[in-house]
């Protein structure tokens, strides 16, 4: 219960910061100022936006399917929020450390799809319906390259547990129960004979200890943009053609929940990318001889220092990825539907299959 509340509060904070960052980053990239009035540099703007949404009238269209319309935002948010349960935030804290976390995460995200269909149908609006259909088609399609990219990580790490994968990517590896004698080699190739187990830092991140995962990371990142309906894959809510996609009819509190779910999805996919590819809560600084930067910037597992350092690294890496998402939104034009499907099925999926194959071979080099 405590984990639930903590995660929810943390998520709300991150989403509010993200909503502010989105407006500011968008403004700066377009040579504008962004919000300036509410609070210093407009920093209270997202909080006020939320307050405004909560005060607004909750409109349920007369022709809508009332039950489905009301249930959908809750289902969408619940599906996304359930995904956070398996994310390890620090070396010692993970809300629900289940052994098949990665698989669970992939499954729970697909629940989101049902909520989208529910919202689209319940609104009884052609734009909402079209938006929901597009959104679902897109998410279901892009789950495949994303799943294959994650699969290659799982093959390298030999685990479906997020926390175990996290420990493998740092100097604290041997402190995880069951991995006391495991070792990391430079680029994962044992033949090179360079042991990086105690060097840690960036040299043990997944994209570094098995460089093929860099390709997997790019594939996952592109697919995750599509899964969270972000530009340039935002055809489900293409303003110029569909008004707002599946959430056209929503207002007030329900819209706030949908908005929260959308931003939570962005945070979630970035968190997963960080945990699986970019070293999770591990520090990027390696130990160099007597200068043990990695240990100095990791704290002690289970103590306050370890929690703070872990959370700091995880959240800062996540925000770097989120910034890239925002930048992509203001850089690239929206893809057409056929281009979207072409990219998914004819480019990303075959490449991801190749990556899975190479990752399997790479794993053989690692032992």
């Amino acid at each position, binding site marked *: 219960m405590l984990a639930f509340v903590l995660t929810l509060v943390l998520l709300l904070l991150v989403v509010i910061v993200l909503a502010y960052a989105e407006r500011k980053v968008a403004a700066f990239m377009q040579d504008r100022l962004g919000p300036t009035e509410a609070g210093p540099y407009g920093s209270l703007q997202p909080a006020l936006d939320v307050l405004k949404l909560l005060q607004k009238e909750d409109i349920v269209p007369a022709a809508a399917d009332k039950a489905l319309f009301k249930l959908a935002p809750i289902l969408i948010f619940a599906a996304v929020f359930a995904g956070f349960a398996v994310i390890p935030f620090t070396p010692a804290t993970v809300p629900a450390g289940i*052994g*098949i976390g990665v698989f669970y995460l992939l*499954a729970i995200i*697909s629940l989101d799809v*049902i909520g989208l*269909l529910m919202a689209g149908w319940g609104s009884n609006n052609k734009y909402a319906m079209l938006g929901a259909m597009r959104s679902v088609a897109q998410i279901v399609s892009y789950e495949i390259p994303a799943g294959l990219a994650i699969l290659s990580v799982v093959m390298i790490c030999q685990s479906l547990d997020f926390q175990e994968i996290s420990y493998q990517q740092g100097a604290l590896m041997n402190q995880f129960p069951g991995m006391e004698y495991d070792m990391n080699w430079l680029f994962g190739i044992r033949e090179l004979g360079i042991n990086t187990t105690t060097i840690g830092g960036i040299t043990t991140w997944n994209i570094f200890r098995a460089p093929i995962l860099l390709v997997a990371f790019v594939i996952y990142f592109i697919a995750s943009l599509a899964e969270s309906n972000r530009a340039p894959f935002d055809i489900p809510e293409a303003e110029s053609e569909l008004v707002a996609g599946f959430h056209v009819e929503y207002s007030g509190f329900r819209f706030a929940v949908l908005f929260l779910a959308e931003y939570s999805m962005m945070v979630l996919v970035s968190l997963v990318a960080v945990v699986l590819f970019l070293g999770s809560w591990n520090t990027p600084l390696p130990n160099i001889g007597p200068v043990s930067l990695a240990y100095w910037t990791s704290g002690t597992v289970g103590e306050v220092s370890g929690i703070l350092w872990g959370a700091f690294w995880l959240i800062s890496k996540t925000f770097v990825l989120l910034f890239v998402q925002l930048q992509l939104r203001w850089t690239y034009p929206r893809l057409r539907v056929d281009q979207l499907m072409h990219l998914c099925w004819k480019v990303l999926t075959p490449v991801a299959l190749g990556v899975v194959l190479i990752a399997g071979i790479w794993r053989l080099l690692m032992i």
Partner: protein
Amino acid sequence: MLFYIFAILAILSGAFMVLTRNLLYAGFSLLVTLLSLAGIYVLLFADFIAVTQLMVYVGGVLVLILFGIMLSSRVHDKSVLSENVNTVWGPLVSGLLLVGLGYTILKAEIASLPWLLTADTDVLGPQKSTVQSIGIKLMTDVVVPFEVASLLLLIALIGAAYIATDKPKV
């Protein structure tokens, strides 16, 4: 106890699925049934099966079904409503089935079967998960069914794509 909550939820939503005339409601109540069954699988120490249930049924089959409903009914008239037929002997047959099955199950006194009493029920073992043993079994004992299943999936994929494609009229 958690199991009974899930069981009641599954039965109620299953019953609602059968009783409701709205196809969409039937689909969404099937969702609740599938989710509560996934919960029961977790309670039965089958975490991998539970997540697979979520992944395949909820993320795949149910989405397909909902798409099927939406594509095979006109949105703006009442065709998401469907009539019931065989309202007399349908419930009769299934009721008789239920009574027969229930009678058999209760009469069989399964709990006192000798091989069940001696069976070891520590499924999870030290790894706290069935993933490892399922993975090993997929690559050893059941590798032939596994490969055949992948072939079946491929055939189903091609077949479904072929059937659903609009063929140019000759």
